[in-house]
């Protein structure tokens, strides 16, 4: 009995895992040691260098997962389904990081953990949508789940521009955009470098996580297939 087992090679190449770990260590060094302290908020502003990259990574994951989900609907090729589940599940992870760190920052700077302004509400909606995605994917039969999940992904992708633009369009308690926010916005060069480096490091870590999760999805499919074929064999009394 031949089993379509996934390759035995590591899901994450050593160079990639090493580069992601090194990038994250360098990023932490930049945040805690190298970058200058913001004059108004003080040291607590450094949450920004992890909070923003986590949000950007969640946005990238949304689009990668959404496009993979649509490609799976069009082609029914399992590799797109594996990629979509891997990317979409990481949206929950990175949004959880984004929201929890932002909430801690809010507690120190605003004196409150949470407020229902446009930015925070739309970010919470994205998190909630992808929690629903994960739950529905587990609970729905295989035949219909691709369609249901693709609909959720499309809603998620529509929410991303809303989150990004919310503090440009609406008056929010969330701080105004510091990049591309018009006159008076902007970051000191060392702060901008730390932020950009953080985004690269976070995307590298995300790439490793997606590869690992995609391997798990391949294994889940192979295990289900093996169980199904074993049961068929038992039923037929072979």
């Amino acid at each position, binding site marked *: 009995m031949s089993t379509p087992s996934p390759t035995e090679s590591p899901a994450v190449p050593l160079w990639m895992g090493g580069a992601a770990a090194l990038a994250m260590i360098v990023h932490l060094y930049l945040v805690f040691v190298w970058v200058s302290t913001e004059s108004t908020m003080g040291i607590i502003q450094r949450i920004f260098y992890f909070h923003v990259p986590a949000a950007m990574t969640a946005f990238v994951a949304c689009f990668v997962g959404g496009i993979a989900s649509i490609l799976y609907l069009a082609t029914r090729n399992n590799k797109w389904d594996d990629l979509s589940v891997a990317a979409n599940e990481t949206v929950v992870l990175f949004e959880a990081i984004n929201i929890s760190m932002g909430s*801690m920052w809010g*507690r120190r700077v605003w004196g409150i953990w949470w407020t229902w302004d446009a930015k925070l509400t739309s970010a919470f909606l994205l998190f909630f949508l992808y929690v629903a995605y994960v739950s529905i994917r587990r609970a729905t039969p295989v035949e219909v789940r691709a369609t249901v999940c693709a609909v959720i992904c499309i809603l998620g992708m529509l929410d991303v521009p809303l989150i990004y633009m919310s503090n440009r369009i609406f008056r929010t308690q969330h701080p105004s955009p510091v990049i591309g926010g018009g006159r008076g916005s902007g970051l000191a060069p060392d702060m901008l470098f730390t932020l950009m480096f953080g985004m690269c490091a976070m995307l590298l870590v995300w790439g490793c996580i997606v590869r690992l999760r995609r391997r798990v999805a391949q294994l889940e499919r192979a295990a289900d297939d093996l169980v199904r074929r074993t049961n068929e064999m038992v039923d037929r009394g072979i």
Partner: protein
Amino acid sequence: MENLHWLFYAYGIGIGLLFAYIFRISRREQSLRRRMAGLEATVEEHWRKKAGP
């Protein structure tokens, strides 16, 4: 000083969530590999018995 504590807590939560997720999917991968190896062994045993001595 209190802000520094909050900064450490926040980064602890952020990095902790990353590690917790990586740990969870690594465990899932290991358990799936074990499950598949067990099933394959059962099938092989079945065929060996069928083939007889």
